């Protein structure tokens, strides 16, 4: 906790004398008559000295040139030169001089206080994130499937809006599979549901088509400017898992174990992320208008799509389903009582691309504000 404070204090001791006084000077240059406590007389004298040397139009550049000359002579002198325009009472770079705070102009102190607040805020934020993370880590990355009644029980003490919606949902769906709420839940839920659907389909045509679309993503990634260096090892992990399903070497408990293993599971999640990013970049004209504050797509992807733990948005869902040619239905369940039923949004890939994948039934995900889980439809 105290780390930041200690640091800044030590920094101050390192080269601070020069800086503190530089501050005073700069403020002088900016505001002609500041209310500086103490040393005003000396500082003013200095700035007037400087003013004599410097033609008025471009004070900064010239002053800098001036400094450079001095620097080139001797470094030790230079240190003096930087500090020279300050008071003589302080020996430059000497860490044993008295407490720095004593020499601070008032508003520097204020600024430092503001900075301390900011550091505290940052620390609190980090603490909050770490608590949330700890909390999330109690849930496996992907859980065993449960009866949908378990979901109902979660809201027994809560709003009846949710309970009613779950009742409706239970008419057509019988199971739910939870995923860890770590910001990757959409991708992980998608990945697991997709692999599980392939496993259960036990259909070589469907599997071949899925493998083909997976292989095709490499071309997509290249065309969007990703170096093979950054993705090919990760791609290999994903492909290997899919091929193992094709070879009949996986059953549902193995699949679950794989998705609960940090490394493989995260590799799959990240590959789905980079596919999403590559697709959004390829069709940027179409999707850029949806981004807030006129963000540029490359920047958006490197901040919100490629980065682990960043939650998925609507356009990510569209991009991933289209890039992999996998249909998805998402049940949106919010606490709003405007609608009695749970709304289903269908994300179906373009018709012309569907080809061999026609027989793949849509994956069904449950969305509650901020989180995705997997749903199972009654056969």
């Amino acid at each position, binding site marked *: 906790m105290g780390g930041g404070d200690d*640091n800044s204090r030590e920094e101050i001791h390192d080269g601070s004398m020069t*800086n503190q006084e530089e501050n005073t000077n700069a403020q002088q240059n900016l505001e002609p008559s500041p209310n500086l406590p103490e040393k005003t007389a000396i500082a003013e004298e200095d700035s007037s000295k400087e003013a004599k040397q410097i033609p008025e139009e471009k004070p900064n550049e010239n002053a800098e040139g001036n400094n450079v000359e001095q620097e080139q002579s001797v470094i030790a002198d230079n240190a003096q030169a930087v500090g020279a325009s300050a008071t003589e009472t302080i020996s430059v770079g000497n860490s044993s001089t008295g407490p720095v705070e004593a020499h601070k102009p008032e508003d520097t102190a204020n600024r430092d206080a503001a900075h301390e607040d900011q550091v505290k805020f940052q620390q609190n934020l980090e603490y909050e994130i770490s608590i949330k993370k700890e909390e999330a880590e109690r849930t496996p990355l992907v859980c065993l499937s449960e009866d949908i009644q378990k979901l109902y029980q979660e809201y027994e003490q809560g709003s009846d809006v949710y309970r009613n919606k779950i009742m409706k949902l239970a008419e057509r769906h019988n199971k739910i599979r939870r995923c860890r709420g770590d910001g990757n839940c959409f991708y992980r839920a998608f990945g697991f549901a997709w692999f599980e659907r392939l496993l259960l389909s036990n259909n070589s045509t469907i599997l071949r088509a899925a493998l083909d679309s997976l292989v095709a993503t490499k071309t997509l990634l290249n065309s969007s400017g990703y170096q093979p260096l950054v993705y090919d090892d990760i791609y290999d992990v994903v492909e290997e898992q899919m091929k193992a399903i094709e070879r009949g070497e996986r059953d549902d408990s193995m699949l679950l174990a794989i998705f609960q293993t940090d490394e493989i599971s995260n590799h799959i999640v990240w590959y789905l992320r980079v596919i999403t990013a590559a697709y959004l970049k390829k069709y940027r004209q179409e999707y850029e208008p949806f981004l807030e504050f006129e963000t540029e797509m490359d920047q958006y992807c490197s901040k919100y799509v490629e980065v*682990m733990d960043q939650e998925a948005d609507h356009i990510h869902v569209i991009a991933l389903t289209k890039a992999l040619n996998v249909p998805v239905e998402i049940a949106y369940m919010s606490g709003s009582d405007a609608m009695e039923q749970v709304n289903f949004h269908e994300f179906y890939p373009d018709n012309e691309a569907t080809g061999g994948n026609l027989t793949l039934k849509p994956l069904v995900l449950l969305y509650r504000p901020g989180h995705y889980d997997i749903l199972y439809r009654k056969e």
Partner: protein
Amino acid sequence: MVDSVARRLLKELKDYQNEPNPDLTELSPISDENILIWNAVLRGETDTPYEGGHWSLRIEVPKTYPIHPPKIKFLTKICHPNISFKTGEICLDILKTAWSPAWTLQSACMAIRLLLSNPEPTSPLNCDAANLLRCGDFMGYESLVKMYTQLHAMNQQDNEESS
């Protein structure tokens, strides 16, 4: 699984060696025994107060790389608002929360080089340098940076390049 990390790192090494980068004069593991610890040397950008300087970076690669970011710090002393003068620790989002496997050791080093000329004084690790910038004293800032560049980053044989 150190294997997959090693595979990736060897590819990165080869990539760097095939296409030398004049702004990153060195990038390699410090020994054959341990591929998880690298050394890099950054060249200061021209027309900045870092011009003419060379800074050594120490890179520690976690076993979960590239899902998790490498730890990078300055070994050579440097004066910059977002780099600790004492420890060489770097405050840069891509080395923390904004990391993704789409970065490489090389591109991460280049992002650090970009940080040098684009300081972010609102989240400082070096308050003195940051304060100069925040109160608009660019002259004082530049001369301070230049002084430390000359003091610490130019004592090698490559002084002649800059002047």
